[in-house]
C-alpha cells in the first residue's frame, strides 16, 4: 500500500517536474543575434543597394514575389505568380486579401502603385531604378515630367496590371528583389525623408523594427499577425561590427550566433569549430574596380597589364585558403552566358612590364586605392603583384559609408569588391554597375555603345538561349577586350552559425532568416539569459 502510494507520488512529481521544465523552455524567448558591418544607409531598399541592409530590411518590408531558399520564385503578397499577356507586355497581379502592414492598414493596389511611383521619383534618389525602367511611364517620372505611373492600372483594391514598354524577360525576377519591397503609402508619406531611419520602417513582413539607433544595433521583433503564418523567432538582434576581428571574437564569445567568415581565417575556424563553418557560393565575382577617368587607367594597356600582373591561382591558394574559383571573365559561372571555354586569365608579369614599356611608361606609375576593411588583405596582395611590374598602389582603408559616398561621387581610382547578382541573370550582374549611366555613378565611367546595346538587347529579348548568347558577347567585350574591370575570382563565401541555430540557408548574398529557428534552451545557455 505504502509502496503504491510512493510510486504514485513519485510519478506525479516526475510529471510535474517535466511539465515545469517544458514550460520554462516554452517561456524562453527565441532570440537570434547576428553580427554584420554597418552599411551606413537607411533601411530603405529603394535607396540602398547593400546586401547587409537588405538582410535587415527584407524581414520587415516584403516584395510581392521573392526567391525562396532554393532560388525559386515564390508569391508572397500575391495569390499566385502574375499572368503575362501573349505579347509579354502586360502583367496581371492579384494581391492576397487580408494582408496588413504592421501599422494596421491593409495592403491595397494603391500601396503598390505608391511604392513604384516613389521609386521613380527623382527626389527619392533610388539606387536601383534600372531594375524597373521597362515599366511604361517610368522614364517620364524619372525625368520629372510626370508623377503618375502610366503603366500601372488599378483594377480594384486587390487587382492591378503593369504594362511594360517592351517585353522584358527577367521582369518577374526583378520584382522579386529587395528593391521592389512594398511600402505602406500612409506611413511612408508621413515619415518623409526619415523613412528607413530609426523605427520608421513598416511593412508586411514577419518582423517589425523595435529599436534602431542607425549606428550600432537594430532589434527586430516578431510580427504577431504575420500573414504568412507563425513566425519562428521572437527577436532578431542585428549588431554592427565594422571590424571583422571584433565580430569574430564576439562570435566566439557567444555575443552573436551567426556571422560571415573572411576567407583569410577559414583554416583557423575550420580547426576550432569544424561543425560551425558553412560554405556557400553566391552568383558573384570578386574584382578590381578601375576608374576609367584616371589618366593611366584610361589606357587599355595599363588595365591589361594589371590583369597580367596578378596570379589569381596563387592568390586563392594562399590568402583565401582555397575558397574561390579563379575568374575567367566577369560573369559568374552560375549565370547563363558565362563562357566555359575561356581559360583562367593569363599570369605573365613580363608581358605586363612589356605592355607598360610599349605604352611609354618608363617610370613606375602610381595609383590610389580606397577599400573597405574587409577587402584590405586582397588589395594588399594585389599591390604586391603590381609593384613587380612597375605600378605603385597606395592603399587607404575607409569605413563603408565613406567608401560608398566616394564611389558615388566618382572619386575612387581603384578599389576591390565582390559584386553579386541577386539571382543568376546577366542583367542583374552587369546592368546596375556597368551600363554607361550606372557606371558614371559608381566611379567606373565605362561608356561603350556596343556594350550598352548588348545589355539593351538582353533586356528586350525574352528567349533565354538568345539572351545567354547576348550576355556571352557582352561579357567577352567587357572582360577580354576592354578590360574594364579586373575579375579575380568567383568567391566561395563562408559563414559561422552556432549549433543552436536551426534551418538557416544562404542561397545568395543576403542573410534571410525566414525559416530560421533557434533552440531556445541551448541559446540561453550561451547567452546566459
Amino acid at each position: 500500500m505504502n509502496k503504491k502510494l510512493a510510486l504514485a507520488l513519485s510519478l506525479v512529481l516526475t510529471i510535474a517536474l517535466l511539465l515545469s521544465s517544458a514550460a520554462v523552455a516554452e517561456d524562453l524567448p527565441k532570440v537570434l543575434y547576428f553580427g554584420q558591418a554597418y552599411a551606413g544607409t537607411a533601411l530603405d531598399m529603394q535607396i540602398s543597394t547593400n546586401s547587409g541592409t537588405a538582410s535587415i530590411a527584407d524581414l520587415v518590408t516584403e516584395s510581392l514575389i521573392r526567391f525562396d531558399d532554393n532560388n525559386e520564385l515564390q508569391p508572397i503578397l500575391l495569390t499566385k505568380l502574375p499572368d503575362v499577356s501573349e505579347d509579354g507586355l502586360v502583367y496581371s497581379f492579384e494581391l492576397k486579401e487580408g494582408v496588413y502592414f504592421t501599422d494596421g492598414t491593409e495592403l491595397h493596389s494603391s500601396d503598390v502603385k505608391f511604392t513604384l511611383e516613389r521609386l521613380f521619383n527623382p527626389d527619392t534618389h533610388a539606387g536601383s531604378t534600372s531594375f524597373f525602367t521597362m515599366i511604361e511611364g517610368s522614364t517620364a517620372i524619372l525625368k520629372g515630367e510626370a508623377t503618375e505611373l502610366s503603366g500601372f492600372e488599378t483594377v480594384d483594391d486587390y487587382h492591378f496590371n503593369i504594362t511594360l514598354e517592351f517585353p522584358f524577360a527577367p521582369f518577374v525576377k526583378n520584382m522579386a528583389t529587395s528593391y521592389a519591397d512594398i511600402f505602406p503609402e500612409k506611413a511612408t508619406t508621413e515619415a518623409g525623408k526619415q523613412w528607413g531611419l530609426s523605427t520608421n520602417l513598416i511593412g508586411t513582413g514577419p518582423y517589425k523594427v523595435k529599436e534602431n539607433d542607425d549606428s550600432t544595433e537594430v532589434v527586430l521583433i516578431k510580427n504577431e499577425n504575420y500573414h504568412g503564418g507563425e513566425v519562428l523567432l521572437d527577436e532578431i538582434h542585428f549588431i554592427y561590427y565594422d571590424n571583422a576581428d571584433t565580430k569574430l571574437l564576439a562570435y566566439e564569445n557567444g555575443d552573436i550566433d551567426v556571422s560571415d567568415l573572411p576567407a583569410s581565417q577559414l583554416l583557423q575556424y575550420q580547426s576550432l569549430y569544424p561543425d560551425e563553418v558553412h560554405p556557400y557560393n553566391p552568383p558573384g565575382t570578386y574584382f578590381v574596380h578601375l576608374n576609367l577617368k584616371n589618366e593611366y587607367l584610361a589606357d587599355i594597356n595599363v588595365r591589361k597589364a594589371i590583369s597580367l600582373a596578378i596570379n589569381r591561382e596563387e592568390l586563392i591558394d594562399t590568402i583565401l585558403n582555397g575558397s574561390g574559383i579563379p575568374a575567367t571573365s566577369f560573369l559568374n559561372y552560375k549565370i547563363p552566358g558565362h563562357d566555359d571555354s575561356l581559360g583562367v586569365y593569363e599570369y605573365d608579369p613580363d608581358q605586363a612590364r612589356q605592355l607598360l614599356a610599349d605604352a611609354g611608361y618608363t617610370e613606375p606609375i602610381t595609383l590610389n586605392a580606397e577599400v573597405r576593411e574587409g577587402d584590405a588583405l586582397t588589395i594588399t596582395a594585389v599591390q604586391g603583384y603590381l609593384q613587380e611590374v612597375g605600378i605603385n598602389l597606395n592603399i587607404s582603408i575607409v569605413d563603408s559609408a565613406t567608401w560608398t559616398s566616394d564611389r558615388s561621387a566618382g572619386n575612387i581610382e581603384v578599389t576591390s569588391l565582390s559584386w553579386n547578382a541577386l539571382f543568376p541573370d546577366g542583367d542583374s550582374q552587369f546592368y546596375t554597375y556597368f551600363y554607361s549611366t550606372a557606371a558614371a555613378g559608381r566611379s567606373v565611367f565605362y561608356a561603350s555603345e556596343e556594350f550598352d546595346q548588348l545589355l539593351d538587347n538582353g533586356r528586350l529579348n525574352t528567349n533565354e538561349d538568345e539572351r545567354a548568347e547576348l550576355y556571352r558577347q557582352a561579357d567577352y567585350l567587357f572582360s577580354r577586350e576592354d578590360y574594364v574591370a579586373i575579375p579575380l575570382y568567383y568567391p566561395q563565401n563562408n559563414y559561422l552559425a552556432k549549433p543552436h541555430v536551426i534551418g538557416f540557408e544562404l542561397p545568395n548574398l543576403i542573410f534571410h532568416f525566414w525559416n530560421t529557428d533557434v533552440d531556445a534552451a541551448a541559446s540561453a545557455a550561451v547567452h546566459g539569459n
Partner: protein
Amino acid sequence: MSAEKKKSYYSESFRLFRKNRVAMVSVIVLLLLSALALLAPVICRYDPNLQSLRDRLQTPSAEHWFGTDEVGRDIFTRCIYGCRISLSVGIVSQLIASVIGYLLGVSAGYFGGKVDDVISFLIQVFSSFPFLLFAMALMNVLGPGLLNLYLSLGILSWAGTARLIRGTVMQLKNQEYIQACKTDGGGNLRIILKHLLPNCVPMLIVSITLGIPSAILSEASLSYLGLGVQIPTASWGSMISESQTYIRTHTYYSLFPGLLIIITVMAFNMLGDGLRDALDPKLHSGGSL
C-alpha cells in the same frame, strides 16, 4: 653669460650625464636603433614591401628572423623600416613643435600684453583638447602620409614647450644683461635669437627628448587606426593593426613591433630624464648658472 662659463656648464652637464647609467644605456639603445634605421637597406636582405604569398605567415627561422606576415613579407625587414618611420616621426614632429613652441613662447613672454593674452589663449586651447582625437581629425583632413604625420603631430604638440619657454623668458627679460642689450640699442630679434635662445636650449633639448616618445606612440596609434602612413609602408602601428587578426595563431607577428615600440619609447623617456637631471643647474657642483 660668458663663453667660458657656458662651456663649463655643458661640460659639467656632460659629466653628470655620463654618471647616469640608465641614461647611458638608453643612449646606446637609441644609437643602435638609429644605426639600424639608417643602414636598413644594407642590413636587410629583403625589400620591405616584397610579397611572397606562398611563404605567408611563417614562423621565425634562419631565413626570416622574425617570420613573415600575411602576404609573405619579411617581418624583420618591416620592423627595421618601421624604425625609420617611428624615429623620423618622433624627431621631425618634435623639431617642428619646438620651433613653433619657442617662437610663440618667447613672443608671449617677451612682449607680454595683448600678444601674451592671445598666445596664452592658444596654449590653453591646444593643451585642453584630447590629443589623439585632434590628431585623428587633422589626419582625416590632411589625408594619410608621412609628411602629414610630421605636420599634424608637430602642429599639435607645441603647447607644452611654449608654456615652459614663456615662463622662463618672463624671468629672463628682466635680467640685467638683457636690459643692457636693450639700452645698447639691440633690437628685439637680436635679443630673442642671440640672448634668450641660448638660455632656452637646455629646456628645449629636454622637451624634445621627452616629446619624442609620445609622438612615436601617437604615430603608432594613428597608423593602427589607418590614419598614419599609407599602406604598404611599414610602420610598427600598422603592423600591429594587421597582425591582430593572427594574434592567437601567429603571436610572434604582433610581438616584435610591439616590443620595439616599448623599447624605443622607454629609451627616449629614460634619456629625457637623464638629460633633465644633467642639465639642471641646481644639481651642478659649481653652483647656479
